[in-house]
């Protein structure tokens, strides 16, 4: 940005040299203000010429502005050289020392997927929901015995259901908490689940509520 502004500054310095003091002061201030509006960095450098412009109204200080600019230019190059010395010349790189004979793949950037379109427009619906898990309760004599004596309900259940999903399904459908669940697969291919209810539930009441007596 500095080189860009210099021709502008040099122009105004020539103007100060040629034109009258008051008019040059006004032009420099206007140009300074214009450049101030451009960017934030600009005011820091315009304050220099600005003060220079104020003093240049005297006439002889037109040269002062030039030297100040040149000083800044020289300064920046000196600063650059210093910085370069500090961080080293990056054009020549140092070779990495390898201490093992094997080359292991370095860690590289792994981006997450951002698909342009979903592969399926509608996600699959869960076909094994609690309605599908519990098929029907058993009402055999041994099942009735279980209700009375052991506080358990016996269900025929979807064969792909597992114990925790059966527990959740029973809870959702009948509002009862299960203490434990035992499952077995019958010889005719259906899964039977013995659902022992928690002590604060009565299996007989629940059975009446469901409709099996």
């Amino acid at each position, binding site marked *: 940005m500095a080189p860009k502004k210099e021709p502008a500054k040099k122009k105004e310095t020539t103007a100060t040299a040629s034109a009258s003091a008051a008019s040059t002061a006004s032009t420099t201030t206007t140009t300074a203000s214009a450049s101030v509006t451009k960017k934030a960095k600009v005011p820091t450098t315009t304050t220099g010429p600005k003060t220079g412009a104020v003093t240049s109204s005297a006439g002889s200080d037109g040269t002062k502005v030039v030297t100040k600019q040149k000083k800044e230019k020289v300064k920046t190059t000196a600063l650059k050289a210093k910085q370069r010395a500090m961080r080293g010349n990056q054009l020549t790189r140092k070779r990495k020392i390898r201490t093992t004979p094997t080359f292991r793949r370095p860690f590289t950037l792994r981006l997450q997927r951002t698909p342009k379109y979903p*592969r*399926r*427009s*509608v996600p699959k619906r869960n076909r094994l929901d609690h309605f599908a898990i*519990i098929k*029907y309760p058993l*009402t055999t004599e041994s099942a009735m015995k279980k209700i009375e004596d052991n506080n358990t309900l016996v269900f025929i259940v979807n064969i792909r259901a597992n114990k925790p999903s059966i527990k959740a399904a029973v809870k959702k459908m009948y509002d009862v908490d299960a203490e434990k669940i035992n499952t077995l697969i019958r010889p005719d291919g259906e899964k039977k689940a013995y659902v022992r209810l928690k002590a604060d539930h009565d299996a007989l009441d629940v059975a009446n509520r469901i*409709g099996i*007596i």
Partner: protein
Amino acid sequence: MTRIKCTDLRGKKPDDLQKQLEDLRQELNVLRVGKVTGSGGAAKLSKIRSVRKSIARVLIVTHQTTKENLRKLYHGKKFKPKDLRPKKTRAIRRLLTRKEKSIRSAKTKRKQWAFPRRVYGVKA
């Protein structure tokens, strides 16, 4: 229960349809229990079939409406989900498009213009 018709279902909102679906499934559950316990009788047993078909109708309508809405959403877009793209057959999808097939080089275009197929007739 009166017979559920798809035309009636299509007017409903998705929340209503979901609720109806749940009600139907509960009813089915109750009917199945009745089947096992032996209560009810022939009327209840025959109802099972109608309830199952009603559930199917509700699911059909919900699925069709969502699909239709998605098609509208993706209409005109470059990348669509694969199930919204034309299915046809695998081979047909890999063929050149009509536009791709009709591309001619400048040379052939010039030839065709300069030397078209002439049609002659024999003067009687």
